[in-house]
């Protein structure tokens, strides 16, 4: 895949086929969007691979992309404290951390792998 639009479409199809409940579908959509937007904006990869699967107690999101070592969840800036203090960069990754049950990152042979369970 190369665009967020492709990912959104694939996520919609997965959630429909797997009959995913609304709250879980929201989490899957949000985690995927934030990670994909982040890698397309800040990473070096022009394309990525996204895989969604059902696991015993939830769902697994697997995202992989090339380029240099780029761990999207290494830093976030927490929630906004006020309108004045509102450089909101990092908010997306903060949301990923809040909504995910588990996040694993590894870098192997020039490929970044991010696994998130929700």
């Amino acid at each position: 895949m190369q665009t967020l639009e492709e990912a959104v479409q694939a996520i919609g199809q997965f959630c429909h086929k797997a009959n995913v409940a609304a709250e879980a579908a929201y989490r899957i959509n949000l985690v995927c969007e934030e990670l994909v937007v982040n890698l397309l904006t800040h990473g070096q990869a022009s394309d990525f691979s996204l895989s969604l699967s059902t696991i015993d107690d939830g769902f697994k999101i697997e995202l992989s992309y090339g380029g240099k070592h780029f761990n999207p969840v290494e830093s976030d800036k927490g929630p906004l404290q006020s309108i004045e203090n509102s450089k909101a960069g990092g908010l997306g990754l903060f949301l990923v951390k809040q909504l995910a049950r588990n996040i694993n990152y590894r870098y192997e042979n020039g490929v970044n792998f991010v696994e998130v369970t929700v």
Partner: protein
Amino acid sequence: MVSIVDGDTITISFQKRLDATNSEDALAQISPALDSLNKSIILDMSELEYISSAGLQVILHCAKAAQQAGSQAGIRGMNDNVREILKISGFLTFLKEV
């Protein structure tokens, strides 16, 4: 995606998704209504199904415009998922539910 009603207050209603695929368009549509703002803003989320951090930037822009104009920004009609995102992002500390 977004519709605007300019009356006693400016009501900005969001529909379906507000995300990285459409937040720039939404902002372009809203921005003229926020120029020389002299009344309160109501953000109506009752038809919004999904918001991400890109959508939160649009909400933040509206809240900032209201604050800079010395007026109020209120929010209403959030579904449970949208409310959770706004809450954990800290937005409900400065946006009043109306």
